[in-house]
Each structure stands twice: as structure tokens, then as C-alpha cells.
């Protein structure tokens, strides 16, 4: 296992309830896990605990067998690549420059970038299909191109596991599907482990091997998509009537109009 949470519990200082309670998840090489849940269900807290930014009050959060918050950040950045939900670049930057930042965890304090660093950048640009954009300014990219560049930067870290926080947000159909196909290709092709946070049940069910559904900081269901996304579980957690269908052997959810009968 690369990343492992065991019965992790966390409560923000001053909060009245736990943001995360008895949550376990483990992601190994070549595995694609998705964490689902409504707003405020603890998805982001889970990621922060898993990445060592928050220390669990009970249970453990480990990376490669070592407590996540004990890792020196530079070493951790060689094992985990993270694509946060948003970031804003203070200064204008070109695509190749920003992907090169992904090599920083591998550089010594005074050393220059080596040939292998530039090779890693080129490989990352190619695997994310953005090599042709290398000399463009970031602010000239479309939303979909920009997300692929950020994935490329995380890949340049040459991590064992990629953490993606709502990567499909504000992308149109083509770019969202393209991004998920890209990530799945990395999992299958390079044996990368992936932990993805999303509220898009359908995409998670189509692409991930394993789902963890959270509600109010607690795990509601975990396992294969067909076991987790049943009509009853989804309706309970999201408080909305749905119909379930199957596409490519994976469950897909269709929200229903709320009629007078169902409200009663």
C-alpha cells in the first residue's frame, strides 16, 4: 500500500463534531480510488489527513508505512503528486516552466536542473498530451488544457500516487472525459495509484475501481461501484430521488424531478 488511512478521526479546533470519523482507505500501485460524498461530507478533510497536512486525532494516516505528517515535505513530494482543487499563479508563467516546478522535490539545494529533470518534464508533457503547448503562457490555455498541465506537473514529480481534488470541476464534457481517460491510462499504463476526490458519482463509477462514499465525515459504503452506488444508498446520502442504470457494466445515476408524491 502506498497510502493508507486506518480508522482515522479528525475534528477541527472549536468544531462541535468530527469532520472525519473512523474512515479507512488504502490505495496501492495501479489502483484507482474515488472518494465521493455531498458537500461537507469530509472529502477534503480526508485528503488533508492523508497528505499529512492535518494530524488524525485517532487512527493512523500513513504513506509507505510512515505517518504522513512525519514525512519531510520534499521527500513526500517524491512519492505523492497532488493536483489541488484550485491555485492562482502570482506571476505569469509558461507551461514548461510550471511543469518544471514538479522537479523541485528532486533537486538539491544549490544544484541546477539536470538532463534527467528536463527528460522527466518532456515525458510528463507527452503523457498528458500537452507537449505542443510547452511554450504557451498559462493564461492563454483553456480550462481543460490547464488541468492537463497541472496533472503533467504532478507527473513530473515522478510520484507513485496521484491525488486529484475535483479535477473535472468547470470542465466541459469533452475535456472532463478526456481528463478521466488520461488518468485511467496512467493507472493502467504506468501503474500509478490514484486517489480522486469528486462529487461526480457517474464519472467516478465509470472510471474508478473502488469507491468510498462519505456522509457527515463517516463512511457509508465502500468497495466496487456496483456495491456502493445502489439506488437506496444514493437516495439516502444525497437526499434526492434517483434512478439507476448500467452503462459499460458500471452504475449510472439519473436524478429524478421531485414530484409532489415523493415529497410527501
Amino acid at each position, binding site marked *: 500500500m502506498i497510502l493508507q488511512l486506518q480508522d482515522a478521526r479528525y475534528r477541527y479546533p472549536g468544531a462541535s463534531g468530527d469532520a472525519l470519523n473512523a474512515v479507512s482507505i488504502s490505495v496501492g500501485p495501479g489502483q484507482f480510488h474515488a472518494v465521493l460524498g455531498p458537500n461537507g461530507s469530509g472529502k477534503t478533510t480526508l485528503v488533508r489527513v492523508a*497528505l499529512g*497536512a492535518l494530524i488524525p486525532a485517532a487512527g493512523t494516516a500513513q504513506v509507505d508505512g510512515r505517518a504522513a505528517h512525519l514525512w*519531510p*515535505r*520534499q*521527500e*513526500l*513530494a*517524491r512519492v*505523492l*503528486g*497532488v493536483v*489541488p482543487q484550485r*491555485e*492562482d*499563479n*502570482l*506571476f*505569469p*508563467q509558461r507551461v514548461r*516552466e510550471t511543469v518544471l*516546478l*514538479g522537479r*523541485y*522535490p528532486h*533537486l538539491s*539545494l*544549490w544544484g541546477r536542473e539536470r538532463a534527467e529533470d528536463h527528460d522527466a518534464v518532456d515525458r510528463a508533457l507527452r503523457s498528458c498530451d500537452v507537449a505542443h503547448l510547452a511554450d504557451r503562457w498559462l493564461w492563454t490555455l483553456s480550462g481543460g488544457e490547464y488541468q492537463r498541465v497541472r496533472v503533467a*506537473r504532478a507527473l513530473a*514529480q515522478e510520484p507513485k500516487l496521484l491525488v486529484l481534488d475535483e479535477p473535472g470541476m468547470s470542465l466541459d464534457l469533452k475535456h472532463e472525459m478526456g481528463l478521466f481517460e488520461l488518468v485511467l491510462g496512467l493507472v493502467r499504463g504506468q501503474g500509478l495509484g490514484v486517489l480522486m476526490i469528486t462529487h461526480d458519482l457517474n464519472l467516478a463509477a465509470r472510471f474508478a475501481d473502488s469507491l468510498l462514499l462519505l456522509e457527515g465525515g463517516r463512511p457509508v459504503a465502500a468497495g466496487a461501484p456496483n456495491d456502493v452506488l445502489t439506488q437506496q444508498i444514493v437516495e439516502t446520502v444525497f437526499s434526492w430521488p434517483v434512478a439507476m442504470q448500467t452503462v459499460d457494466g458500471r452504475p449510472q445515476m439519473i436524478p429524478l424531478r421531485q414530484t409532489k408524491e415523493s415529497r410527501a
Partner: protein
Amino acid sequence: MKWTLLAVLAVVALVLSVVLGPAAVPLGELLRSDIVWNLRAPRALLAFLVGGSLGVAGAALQALVRNPLADPFLLGLSGGAGLGAVLAIALHLSGPWALPIAAFIGALAALGLVYRLGLIGGASLDPRILLLGGVAIGAFAAAITTAIVSLADAAELRNAFLWLWGGLSGASWDSVLLVALYAPIPLVVLMAASRPLDLLALGEESATYLGADVERVKRRVYLAASLLTAAAVAVSGVIGFVGLVVPHIARLTWGHRHRSLLPAAFLGGGALLAFADTLARTVVAPRELPVGVVTALIGVPVFALLLRRWTIA
């Protein structure tokens, strides 16, 4: 190529400030002249060191507080240093080092207060509060300074006022030596933080995930840049716009990677201040303008041009 150009610029600025001056020194006697050796040479070097330090401190602070308009003096140091210096003048403290030491202590006091304010939210240093706290502390110190100046007699008032606008007339080989020994320490600390500073431009969360120890970097950069500025202000008063404009010009040519940006800001800031000081000494000779007036007169139009460029681009 651009490094060669910058090096040539720096050398030209230094040579000009040794050759030019209100007293006519024939070129042939340049190397034997007391005026050159005891006045112009140390003054040129001090201007270069101070300008370079302000350039580097400004570039680093702009990345730290994530605000391209940050100036090293925005963090309250100028107010503290000014208060210290004016107090020394009002209390008639004598001796060649009374003023610099008082200014340095004032700057350190402001630095400590602002740093403490920056930690107000807990263990993590908040750059936004550093900025706001710096402005507030600076304004507070300036108010006390003005109160003292308004009670002082005319000659004292003039001295204090001139000091506040910066000047290098107190330069000596001693002060050059002092700065040359002191400045390299914070400069090396800032150079060592180059890559984490690059990462900070993405925001603290992204920087952390790319391997930066954000809390430690913020503290180190703030303290090193402030200590550098405090020394500069102690030996030369408040010289504005070098720390604001030079990093921006350097970024236009060298980009945003601090490993090349910081050295470029050092050479550029040094050249600019040496040049500005030459102008300050010569344009109204035998009188002298405060060098802060010259840097502001050069810096503000340049800055206006930069702003125009940004808003159009």
C-alpha cells in the same frame, strides 16, 4: 548576453560615481586623489551594496506576501527606522554611529512588532497580516516621528527630514566594511530559499505539495529580507522604489525563477542606486539632493510605465 549587459551596466554605474562629482578631479589623478579614495569610492560601493540589498529584499518579499506591489519598506521598517533616527537627532546623541544604530534599533523594533502581529492567528505566519501590520506599525511610527519633528528646532528638523529621504553622505570605508560583512548572511539565506519562493507563487497549499516547507520558508524569508532592509536603512536612510521597481524590471528580462532573479535584482539594484547617488551629488552641486528623491523621480515614471504595460497585456 543579458548577464554581460547587466555586469557592464553595474561597472559603468560604479565607474561614473567615482569619476563624477562636484569637485573636479583630473582623470590622470583619479587613483591618487583623496576625494576619490576616501569619499567617492566608499560611497559608490555603499550605494551599490545598499541598492543590491534592497533589490533582493524587494524581490523576495513580493513573492512572500504574494503582492507584486510590496516594497521592503512597506513592512513598517522605514517607520521604525525613521523614528529611531529622529529620536537620536532630538536627543542630540553624538558620535558617527549614533544615527545608524538608533535607526537599526528602530527598524528591529518594528520588525519584531510586525512579526508578532503576523503570528496573531496562531503558529502560522500570515503574509496578509504581515502586510497590514507593517502598514499600521509604519503609520504609527510615522505619527510619533512627525510629533517629535514638529517640536524640534529648525536645524534639527532639516536634518531629520533629509535623513528620512535617504542619503549616502555618511559613507565611509567602515560602513562599507560593516555592510559587506553583514549583508551576505541574509543574502545567502534568501538565495537558498529561491526554489521554495518559486513554489510559493502558486499559493501555500500547492507549494507544500511540491515539497516546500512553507512555514519555515515564510519565517526565514521575512526575517532575512527584513534584516537586510534594516541594515540598508541604518546606513542610508529610507530609499524608496529601488526595492519595488528593480525586481519588476528584472522579472521582465530574467523571468520569475528566483535563482536568476535574485542575483539580477542585486546587480540591477546596485547599479540603479549607484547611478541615482551620482545624480543626487552632481545635479545641484555643491548642494546635494536626498538620494530617495532621485530614486523616486526615476522610479515613479518607470513604475507607471510598468503598470501601463500590465493593464494593456
